């Protein structure tokens, strides 16, 4: 295995793109990444496309080959669409990393994209429910907000958790979103405003939930011999790990943790040769406020039972002990599902280049965490700034 670098990044804004197709969003982000990498298109040996629900929501598939054609990539390279629910983008990244790390090619591009805002809430909910075990959990009428409503009550039983505790996460991420020009819905919210919004899946309320989003993000990965071509400082990938977990709620014997995340984080720290304390900035999968609390503990960057408390104490702020979701996370930046895992890495690369609009001081080590379904698929990546 050889070192892999991220040498080019691109992204659309996350939000509403009513007049632009998913192919166009993906092509635009990819073009930015290729140009920034300085790598000739003929040197790209593979394209991986992260996407989850372009079939049910847009009636479009084979997007990998379509976008490669739009970009004028060589016609003989493998172009693969990758699906792993909300972890689709993270898994696509890992495949591109594998292709370069193990010498299949010297450079590869990964792009994630989704287009969701044209659909109704019920249509989006139904499409997202494709990520559930629809022989066991689906027939009960469970939804993904419902999963985290279940987790909230179980967590409250184990550790104690109030509305205001959870709101600390919402306030932080929405505020961070205000400082990210790519974010869909940053906001300056009060505890009272959060407590007053509509109930979605008790005790989860509207501001606890990420929005439906359109958007795309892309990255070019390369080996050592090509990184000098980049117009920006490349970032080194120290670890890229993918794990699986239980696909059914009932197989999660502890509703306050996702085993796939715990295992992925442990493997990633081992591969990177670092400990959780060395991570400066984390972009994690806060599809719901409750998810950030669980994820931050599963990743080991916050002690068990302290996820909400650390947020309330400012310890996960941009200038806290460990910065969590300075982009605004899924809650504020948005969640164009297939693009999310790629967009998280885009954000961390900008942090490690010290060029982020919500910059973490002296960020040297960054981590991303992308979780799919009921914890059935997970990726964790660790990246390092190059001096």
């Amino acid at each position, binding site marked *: 295995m050889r070192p892999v670098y991220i040498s080019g990044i691109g992204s659309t804004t996350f939000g509403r793109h009513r007049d632009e197709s998913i192919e166009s969003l993906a092509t635009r982000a990819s073009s930015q990444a290729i140009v920034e990498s300085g790598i000739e298109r003929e040197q790209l040996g593979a394209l991986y496309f992260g996407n989850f629900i372009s079939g049910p929501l847009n009636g479009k598939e084979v997007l990998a080959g379509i976008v490669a054609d739009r970009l004028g990539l060589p016609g003989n390279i493998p172009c693969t669409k990758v699906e792993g629910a909300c972890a689709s983008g993270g898994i696509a990244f890992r495949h591109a990393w594998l292709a370069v790390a193990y010498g299949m090619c010297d450079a590869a591009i990964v792009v994630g994209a989704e287009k969701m805002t044209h659909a109704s809430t019920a249509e989006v909910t*139904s499409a997202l*429910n494709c990520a559930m075990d629809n022989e*066991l959990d689906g*027939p*009960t009428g469970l939804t993904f907000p419902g999963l985290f409503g279940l987790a909230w009550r*179980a967590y409250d039983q184990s550790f104690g958790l109030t509305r205001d505790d959870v709101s600390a996460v919402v306030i932080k991420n929405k505020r961070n979103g205000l400082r990210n020009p790519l974010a869909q819905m940053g906001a300056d919210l009060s505890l009272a405003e959060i407590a007053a919004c509509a109930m979605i899946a008790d005790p989860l309320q509207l501001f606890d939930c990420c929005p439906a989003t359109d958007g795309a993000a892309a990255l070019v990965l390369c080996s050592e011999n090509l990184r000098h071509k980049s117009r920006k400082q490349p970032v080194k990938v120290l670890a890229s790990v993918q794990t699986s977990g239980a696909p059914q709620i009932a197989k999660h014997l502890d509703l306050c943790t996702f085993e796939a995340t715990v295992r992925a984080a442990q493997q990633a720290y081992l591969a990177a040769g670092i400990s959780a304390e060395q991570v400066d900035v984390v972009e994690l999968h806060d599809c719901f406020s409750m998810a950030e609390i669980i994820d931050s503990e599963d990743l080991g960057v916050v002690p068990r039972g302290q996820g909400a408390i650390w947020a309330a104490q400012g310890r996960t702020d941009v200038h806290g002990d460990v910065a969590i979701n300075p982009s605004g996370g899924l809650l504020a930046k948005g969640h164009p599902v297939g693009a999310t895992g790629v967009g998280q890495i885009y954000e961390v690369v900008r942090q490690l280049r010290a060029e982020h609009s919500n910059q973490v001081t002296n960020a040297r080590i960054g981590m991303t965490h992308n979780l799919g379904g009921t914890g059935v698929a997970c990726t964790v990546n660790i990246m390092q700034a190059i001096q």
Partner: protein
Amino acid sequence: MIGQALELTLFCCQGCGALHEQRPVVCASCLGETFDEKAVTGQGRLASWTTIRKPPLAFRGHGQYDVAVIDLSIGLRVTGRIASQSNQRVGDRVSLTHRIEIDGEQINVFEVQQT
């Protein structure tokens, strides 16, 4: 105390004894392919519950409903519906009281036992 709990039919692997909520193609514990039906009491404890107020398309028109995770006394965790009460808590004893049919699927509905 509410009435007698209904029974659930589980599927017990003839090879290793693992219990399954639905008849599997193969046993995920031992890859066995033969199973015995086993009737068990629909009693257990409430592990968690939530009220779904924004349902997916297939459930639109059902109004809001409560989904629960139940730890059966036999030692298996299952999902189902619960007829919620305002004062219920995680850990409460529950019983399977009836079933509802949605799109041809029989859904178990539990109720908290009043003591």
